[in-house]
């Protein structure tokens, strides 16, 4: 892969990491806060359904994961398994797409 493309991947992973740092902190803090007095699935869905704010937040979260994880896995595959090249790149891209689809489904399930 060209220096241009590799640098862009590196930038994308760093930028998505910055987004994830914020998203994970908000996600964990919200979960701990929301369930402190006990919370049922129905209560949770009652708060999330129709909420544009939470839908936007978790959509950004899912997109950041779908960008960040496959780039990291590509490096792990290259360094630990010695698996490099187009097939490895394609496999990691597929994992990214799968994360995006699964994440989008989860967001839709609790927001719509």
């Amino acid at each position, binding site marked *: *892969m*060209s*220096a*241009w493309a*590799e*640098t*862009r*991947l*590196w*930038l994308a992973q760093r930028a998505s990491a910055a987004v994830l740092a914020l998203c994970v902190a908000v996600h964990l803090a919200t979960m701990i806060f929301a369930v402190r007095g006990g919370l049922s699935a129905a209560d949770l869905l009652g708060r999330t359904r129709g909420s544009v704010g939470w839908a936007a937040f978790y959509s950004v979260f899912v997109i950041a994961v779908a960008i960040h994880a496959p780039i990291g896995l590509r*490096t792990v595959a*290259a*360094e*630990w398994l010695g698996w*490099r090249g187009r097939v490895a790149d394609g496999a990691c891209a597929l994992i990214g797409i799968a994360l995006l689809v699964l994440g989008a489904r989860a967001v839709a399930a609790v927001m719509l």
Partner: protein
Amino acid sequence: MSTLEVKVWRGGADGRFQTFPVPRRDAQTVLDVVTYIQRRLDPTLAYRFACRVGMCGSCAMTVNGQPRWTCRTHVTDVARKDTLEIAPLANLPIVRDLVTDMREFFDKWARARAQFQPTKTRRDDFARIEPASPARRAIDVAIECIGCGVCYAACDVVAWNRDYLGPAALNRAWTLANDTRDGAHRERLAAVAGDAGCHACHTHQSCTERCPKHLTPTASIAGLKRMTALAVLRGEL
């Protein structure tokens, strides 16, 4: 006078350690130990050294598992219960005994475009560079590399990715990337970007921890990451 038990690597990659008894001396360096073995115990021992005063960078070896410059490493600082284990540098092919083949190490300097590319001739006036300028200061903290290969042997990423240029070549490229007289800025950034270049560094800082000159190749590589990222965003790479 006590005696050191010194295990020394013999042979090539499939070699083994051979043990030698070496008398302890005051202010004895690891290079003194190796020299004693070759001159008094086994003249067939192959090792490499030149200046003996920490300038030439040719005597680096693995001492008790860590890469070190042996001429400036005192036995008292590294011996464990009067034993030493001396092996060739890691991450480089072994020629014989304690001698490694440094070609790939220096070839990577060339691949990183770690040579000065002049933009003026001898008929031009001297370049004027403000000593306190940020670029000159960035060069100052990275310029004293002696090319010993200790950082390269200490680097995990070199072990995982044989194409990785390594800390020394990238550190040298960083000094040139900050040299306002140099004319290969864009080509060098392209050479050091990517999977075999600065972006492969995981910031483990083994190079910085082990550098005998107390340089910080990790900071130089981070500087190259910033510089290449800015170049991409500006459409210059």
